[in-house]
């Protein structure tokens, strides 16, 4: 389990786009570096990120080693009614983690 920060605006209007910001604590080891004795450090990155709102896709992203450590992502969402935003990401070991954030339409 890695630490995830999700920022959702407090005031959301129906059918008006709003930005969601996500910060994931992850080293995103690129697989290009070597340790002190010259051995390559194995790649360990988050390679897939999916954001859904009540089951409907918002953003589906593939990440490559060029994404910086502690990946930050901001993207736009549009909601008709209050719901749950689910952010799922998969790392190189196949570990899947899902974080939920409530969307409250006023």
């Amino acid at each position, binding site marked *: 389990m890695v630490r995830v920060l999700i920022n959702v605006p407090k005031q959301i209007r129906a059918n008006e786009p709003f930005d969601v910001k996500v910060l994931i604590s992850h080293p995103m080891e690129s697989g290009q570096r070597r340790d002190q004795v010259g051995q390559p450090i194995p790649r360990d990155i988050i390679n897939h990120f999916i954001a859904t709102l009540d089951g409907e896709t918002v953003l589906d992203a593939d990440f490559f080693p*060029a*994404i910086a450590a502690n990946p930050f992502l901001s993207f736009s969402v549009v909601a008709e009614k209050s719901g749950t935003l689910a952010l799922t990401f998969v790392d190189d070991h196949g570990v899947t983690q899902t974080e939920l954030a409530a969307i409250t339409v006023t």
Partner: protein
Amino acid sequence: MTLPRRRFVLITTCAAVSPASAKPAEVATLIQALVGDASLKDGLIHLDLPVMVENGNAVAMSVSVADPPSPVEAIHVFAEGNPLPRVAVFRFGPRSGAPRVGTRIRLATSQTVIAIAKLRDGSCWRDSVDLLVTLAACIE
């Protein structure tokens, strides 16, 4: 001009550690495979990156498509000078508010970064940024 010792160590370590960087031709092949027979035009998509980068380990990047004539299916980002040219692929779903994404990327050297937007009508749009990187991302 004498090279400061630290800068020399930095450059040689970078050269020793990083494998051959991706070639512009390699990126062109990837883009060709992505675009296929469709037309590739400049414009519509906007790639926002600083022209001068002090630290290549985390470079703020944002990419957006303003008023697309048909929904944006995906945005692909390539870095010509990185050891692996692919940076990210963003696909937009029905709940996406606008085709725009912001993130932070690694850049191994001064290079050209290219963003391609693929629209549902099949058209592809391109934007690129030439940038200078002072501290490369290949070492911590």
